[in-house]
């Protein structure tokens, strides 16, 4: 084989220039002839019975083409992993922002005006804002068919936790809370829907699961799967939020009613109040260790807030219960998770998928134990670190694992040992590790994997088709690199095609840090298939054996004699001509060795590979204002073999920025059932000016299940950030942060309490 040339090299995103120069047409730029514009009327109350809706005046407004409510829908209950959704509120609204009615009109202004003409009579009902309140006896019910507001429960147990904790030398017992945060992608959710005369819908929607999203949508509209086609334009970010949403269904329903294309995008305000923010969680942990700092046992109880309907919150709570158990060599673990309904915005996926919340808690507890034992927190991590070629307490098979190397590199880069030894007042350094997955079998249940199609045209142009979703993270570039590497051609000969469910393979999509490994393996398999087919033609042309033919830099030659070579494009031309126009088509798939967890024991193996990481934060605290400044940050991540180091580094820096925002400022505030800060003036995210230098380091053990040895980075990039910062705050001030975010006010109060207790 020729040596690896394109994989492992830093390339700017192949679509980066188009985006940077404003040429990319994003989802919200799509305009179809005759297109109507939709607006949604949302509930002003967190919980109310709908007594009457009068749409007559709105319908009479010139320019209005349709006004729809629940009565205009098939009335089918549906949901991604539940059946608690309706397209519009049925008999009652369940959160402020719940969809009540929608208008399609010739322009947005007319649609907006029409909304103001819809009269809705409500009877306000008592509501619950917090999952703890919701679970109390007698709390108002969000869904009458879910007594106690329990949306889901999850239990997992392995080993003997009670004995392990009883026999521990030290035990940390602490309660944590992680708040609600908003994904704050650049482009709000939305879609353009188009219906043909046969009633078949084409949905142009920026979303992370273009194939899967069709299933609940078809059900909701009473259609068969083949009647819903999804086309995936370029779109402005997702971070987990852009999965199923009524925002899309509103456009689809209105397109059906009017027979015209309908565009519906959330305003930023609507996106805040009715998007899919992070699942807030109350997490209680008991973590024990022996004298040497070896973990003995762990018990957690998680209460997660689903909001008014389930998007993916119950799987996220389950993830928070046990995914982090593959970070260390746990033997005795027990977890219980409850997902509760409340009258608040439905919550869902956000980079980290519950493992962020759990990592914040576990890595805070590890820090507490290390201090109790008088042990270096870094040493304690290394001591417990799960190793390569090992099996976790839940049966997960860890192949490659560079966790120890991550800790070693991060501590070296940050000067950890010296800084720990020479403690300076109000300055602190903190460390946190993480693990994650590259795919989630518990999520993709029917089958798991990835598939690709590689088409080589008569002109030699290579088109790669996949079913995943590039929301800006760089997936297209990675797929182009894999295809170019496998075929032996320059990178710019490859186009990565828009996902169109009429053409592309079925892919599960972009979540669970699975794009590179699953989709990449699919593209790799298809590229190999295409290569063999084309190499056969080249072999025939060179009168040689196909096994002896290689391609490098766009030229085929027989091993050992590179000077006698054939142009790839000439071979492609020949191949197509001899097939009377049929292009060379490579198809292939990847069947990962994952195991669906046993419903009872939860033993399984949810991912073919597991990435790891270690981040170290340095902070400075102002003792009079409580303000925290993060002054330096290093992030070492085991990503398997890097396919595009530049893109990986970008992901790491972005993850740290998002985690820093969560730790220090991001907070959706709900007041009397309403989001009180549904705009970027009051909901703060970090700007470039808030960021310290972030130094990424790639640790690259070869992952046997990854394409060219690669794993993934999307979610691990944020998982350890919160606890790295809060552990540094502890180092600086002695204050243990158990609730996010850390406002200056909160930290100042805690510092004063601490001072009081020392003096008193």
């Amino acid at each position, binding site marked *: 084989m020729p040596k690896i040339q394109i994989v492992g090299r830093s390339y700017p995103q192949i679509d980066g220039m188009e985006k940077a120069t404003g040429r990319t047409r994003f989802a919200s730029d799509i305009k179809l002839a005759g297109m109507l514009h939709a607006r949604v009327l949302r509930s002003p109350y967190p919980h109310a019975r709908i007594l009457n809706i009068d749409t007559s005046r709105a319908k009479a407004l010139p320019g209005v083409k349709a006004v729809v409510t629940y009565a205009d829908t098939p009335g089918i209950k549906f949901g991604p992993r539940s059946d608690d959704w309706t397209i519009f509120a049925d008999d009652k609204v369940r959160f402020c922002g719940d969809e009540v009615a929608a208008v399609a009109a010739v322009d947005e202004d*007319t649609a*907006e005006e029409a909304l103001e003409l819809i009269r809705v009579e409500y009877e306000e009902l008592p509501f619950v804002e917090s999952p703890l309140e919701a679970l109390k006896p007698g709390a108002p019910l969000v869904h009458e068919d879910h007594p106690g507001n329990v949306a889901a429960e999850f239990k997992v147990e392995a080993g003997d936790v009670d004995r392990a904790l009883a026999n521990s030398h030290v035990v940390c017992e602490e309660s944590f809370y992680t708040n609600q945060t908003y994904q704050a992608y650049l482009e709000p959710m939305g879609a353009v829907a188009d219906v043909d005369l046969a009633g078949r819908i084409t949905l142009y929607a920026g979303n992370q699961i273009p194939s899967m999203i069709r299933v609940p949508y078809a059900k909701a509209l009473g259609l068969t799967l083949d009647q819903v086609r999804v086309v995936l334009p370029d779109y402005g970010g997702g971070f987990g939020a852009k999965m199923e949403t009524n925002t899309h269904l509103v456009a689809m329903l209105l397109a059906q009613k009017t027979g015209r294309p309908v565009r519906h995008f959330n305003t930023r305000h609507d996106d805040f109040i009715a998007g899919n923010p992070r699942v807030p969680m109350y997490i209680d942990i008991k973590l024990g260790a022996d004298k040497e700092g070896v973990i003995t046992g762990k018990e957690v109880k998680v209460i997660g807030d689903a909001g008014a309907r389930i998007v993916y919150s119950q799987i996220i709570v389950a993830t928070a219960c046990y995914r982090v158990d593959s970070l260390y060599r746990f033997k005795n673990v027990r977890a219980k998770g409850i997902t509760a309904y409340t009258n608040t915005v439905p919550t869902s996926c956000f980079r980290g998928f519950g493992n962020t919340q759990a990592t914040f808690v576990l890595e805070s507890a590890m820090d507490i134990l290390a201090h109790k034992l008088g042990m270096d927190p870094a040493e304690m991590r290394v001591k417990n670190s799960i190793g390569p070629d090992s099996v976790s307490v839940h049966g997960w098979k860890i192949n490659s694992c560079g966790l120890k190397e991550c800790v070693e590199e991060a501590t070296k880069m940050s000067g950890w040992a010296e800084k720990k030894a020479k403690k300076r007042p109000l300055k602190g350094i903190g460390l946190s590790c993480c693990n994650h997955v590259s795919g989630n079998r518990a999520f993709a249940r029917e089958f798991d994997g990835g598939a690709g199609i590689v088409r080589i045209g008569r002109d030699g142009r290579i088109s790669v088709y996949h079913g995943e979703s590039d929301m800006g993270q760089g997936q297209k570039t990675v797929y182009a690199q894999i295809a170019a590497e496998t075929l032996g051609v320059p990178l710019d000969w490859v186009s990565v095609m828009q996902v169109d469910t009429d053409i592309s393979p079925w892919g599960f999509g972009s979540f669970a840090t699975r794009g590179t490994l699953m989709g990449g393996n699919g593209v790799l398999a298809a590229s190999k298939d295409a290569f063999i087919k084309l190499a056969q033609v080249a072999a025939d042309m060179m009168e040689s054996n196909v096994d002896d033919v290689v391609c490098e830099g766009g030229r085929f030659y027989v091993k050992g004699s590179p000077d006698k070579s054939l142009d790839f494009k000439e071979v492609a031309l020949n191949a197509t001509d001899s097939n009377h126009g049929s292009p060379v088509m490579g198809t292939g798939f990847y069947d990962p060795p994952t195991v669906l967890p046993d419903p009872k024991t939860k033993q399984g193996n949810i991912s073919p590979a597991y990435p790891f990481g270690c981040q170290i934060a340095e902070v400075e605290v102002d003792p009079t204002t409580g303000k925290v*400044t993060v002054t330096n940050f290093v992030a070492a991540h085991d990503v398997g073999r890097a396919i595009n180091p530049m893109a990986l580094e970008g992901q790491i820096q972005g993850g740290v920025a998002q985690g820093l925002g969560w730790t220090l*400022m991001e907070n959706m505030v709900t007041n009397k059932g309403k989001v009180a800060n549904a705009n970027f003036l009051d909901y703060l995210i970090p700007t470039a000016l808030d960021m310290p230098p972030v130094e990424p380091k790639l640790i690259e053990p070869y992952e046997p299940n990854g394409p060219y040895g690669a794993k993934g980075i999307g979610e691990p990039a944020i998982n350890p950030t919160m606890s790295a910062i809060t552990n540094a705050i502890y180092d600086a001030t002695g204050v243990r942060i158990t609730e996010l975010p850390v406002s200056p006010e909160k930290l100042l109060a805690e510092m004063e309490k601490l001072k009081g207790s020392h003096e008193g």
Partner: protein
Amino acid sequence: MPTPRFTFHQPQNLEQALDLVGMYRTNGKILAGGTDLVPKLRAGLMDVHHVVSLNRVPGLNRITFHEDDGLVIGAGARLADVALNPEVMKHYPGLAHACSVMATTQIRNMGTVAGNIVNSAPSADTAAPLLAYKAAVILVERGGRRHVPLTEFFSGPGLNVMEPMEIMEAIRVPSPPRRSGSAYLRLSARSKVDIAAVGVAGFLALDMDGVIIEARLALAAVAPTPLRCPEAEAMLAGQKPDPQLLTRAAAACVRACRPIDDVRATAAYRRKMVQVLAGRVIEQCYQTAERGDA
């Protein structure tokens, strides 16, 4: 909310502008940088049919300084221009600082000091330093002109004493005496690009022995309007600062404020931060005043 529709007027001189403002006094609004006005229009917070832009009126963007007359900031002067003006930086560092840290680069390039004052937000960043500098505003209307000291200008959140036919022409700031010092400090949840949760401005003038002749302190974001702190000022006058005096004067500032709880901070935290920032501001003013070159 449908996009608001209005007629956009671009008068070529102040007279035309005054005519238009008089004509549309019930349903018109003046536009300078538009960074407060446009978001409010879009949010449907006002019923406006006519927008009168001051951006074509010549001379409005002037920034002039004379030792005797002090500083004149024309109503069209952009925040960024004020922030970078050498005279403002030298003689009014508190104002220069406010104009350079508030909002964002883009907003500072569009927004004006006059707009910030007329908008009269409790958290207006230029208000506290201008109060501390004893600024006055010049208001003109058809056939009239009046000077209003800034201390008498604000009347509530978003409210002030201006009449609907009036235009703010300029802001006048007296020249600071030789041995004086001034400063502005603000605190917000995000260190950059955020509305202030607390702002404190100060001005101190000293005699040759370092005794404070005159003290002026002003607060923003902690009451329905930006305001001065007469009690604290009186405490400082005739004194040389020591740590105890600083603490007491800062405590008097805390007594002057009437903060509320909002998403940025609680009232209790705001009070605490007034204490912290006021102490720092007084100290900083004193140090620069002692150097005597201001």
